[in-house]
C-alpha cells in the first residue's frame, strides 16, 4: 500500500516509490524536490527563509535555503545517490500579501527563490522545472516513480511540472 509522506514547514523527508511525498500550503516558503533519474528515492525540503547566517535562531537547519539544501544533499548521498546525479524541481516563493515592496514581508518570497537557485547552482544541480513567485499558495506532491511534481493551488486546480 503506497503512502503519501507529509513534510511540514521547516522540515525535510525522504521518500521511496511507490510512496509519494507532499508539502501543503507553500506561501512564500519554497518546496525543493531533489531526485535522480537512476533512483526511485527522492527528498523534499520545505524552507522558510533564505540565509541561516543572517539569523541568530538557526538551529533548525531545514528552516533555511542554505543549510536545508546541504542537509537534503547529504541525506540523499547517504542513500547512495551521488550529488552529480541530482536534479531539482522547485515551487513556492509567492508574495501572499501586497505590502509595499521595500518591506521585508513583501519580498521574502523573491529572496527565497534567489537563495534556493544560488545554492542549487553551487552544487551544480540543475532545476528541471519550477513554479515560483506570483501571488498564490501551492501544495506540491512528488512521485519518485514518474518524477512528476504536481502543483495544486487553492480551489483544487492542479498542473504537473
Amino acid at each position, binding site marked *: 500500500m503506497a503512502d503519501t509522506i507529509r513534510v*511540514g*514547514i*521547516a*522540515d525535510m523527508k525522504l521518500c521511496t516509490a511507490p510512496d509519494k511525498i507532499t508539502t*501543503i*500550503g*507553500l*506561501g*512564500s*516558503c519554497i518546496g525543493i524536490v531533489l531526485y535522480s533519474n537512476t533512483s526511485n528515492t527522492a527528498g523534499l525540503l520545505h524552507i*522558510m*527563509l533564505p540565509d541561516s547566517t543572517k*539569523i*541568530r*535562531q538557526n*538551529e*533548525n537547519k531545514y*528552516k533555511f535555503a542554505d543549510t536545508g539544501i546541504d542537509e537534503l544533499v547529504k541525506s540523499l548521498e547517504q542513500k547512495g545517490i551521488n550529488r552529480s546525479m541530482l536534479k531539482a524541481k522547485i515551487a513556492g516563493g*509567492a508574495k*501572499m*500579501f*501586497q*505590502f509595499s515592496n521595500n*518591506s*521585508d*514581508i513583501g519580498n*521574502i518570497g523573491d529572496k527565497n527563490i534567489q537563495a534556493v537557485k544560488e545554492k542549487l547552482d553551487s552544487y551544480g544541480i540543475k532545476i528541471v522545472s519550477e513554479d515560483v513567485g506570483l*501571488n*498564490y*499558495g*501551492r*501544495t506540491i506532491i512528488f512521485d519518485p516513480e514518474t518524477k512528476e511534481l504536481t502543483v*495544486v*493551488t*487553492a*480551489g483544487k486546480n492542479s498542473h504537473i511540472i
Partner: protein
Amino acid sequence: MEKKNDNISENVRNALTELGNIGAGNAATAMSVMLESKLTISTPQVELYEFNELEEILGFAEDTVVGVLSLIEGDMQSMLLFVLGVEDAEQLVKTLLNQEVDWHSEMGISAIKEVANILIGSYVASLEMLSGLNLRYAVPQICIDMAGSILSVPCIEFGKVSDKALLINSQFKVGQKEINGYIMMVSEVHSFDVLLTKLGIGGIDG
C-alpha cells in the same frame, strides 16, 4: 487544537487572555454597530505554537480562507490576522451590503477589508489604552488562499527569531447570521515582553 507547549506561566497567560478579551471585545462592539447585529466573542486562547501546529489551527491547511493581515509596529512588533471561511465571507458581505453582491467582486472585497480595518483598529486602540504603549498599524492587506499559505506569512516573520509563535486567538459569531471568524494576534514570543512589562507582570520567561 490541544496545547502542546505549555511553558507560559499562569500569570502571563491570564494577562494575555485578558488583553485578547478586551482587544477582541472592543473590535466586536465596533463590528456589532456596523452589522446591526449582536456579536459574540469567545474567550481567547493563548498558546505558544510550533510552526507546524500553527498551520493547522484553522482546520485543514489546504482549505481556502480569506485572510486580512496588518502589521503592528512601534513599541512592539506583532501581526493581527483576521480570518474568515469562504462561506462566512459571503455571508458577511451580504449582511453588510444588504443585497446580493458577489463577495469576490471589488465591492465585496473592499467591504471585507473595511470590516477588518475597523476590527484591527479597535483591537490596536484598546491595546494602546491598556498598556500605554505607542503602536501603529499598516493598512491591512487581503489574501484569499490556502490557510497554510496565509499562516506561513506570520510564521516566516517570526521564524527569524524563534521556532515558536505566540497566538492570542478569539473566535466570533454574528447573531443568527452564522458568520464565524477569527482574530489572531501573532507575535514573536519576546515582543510580548514589552507589553507585559508595561502591565507590571514581567516577561514571558518569568
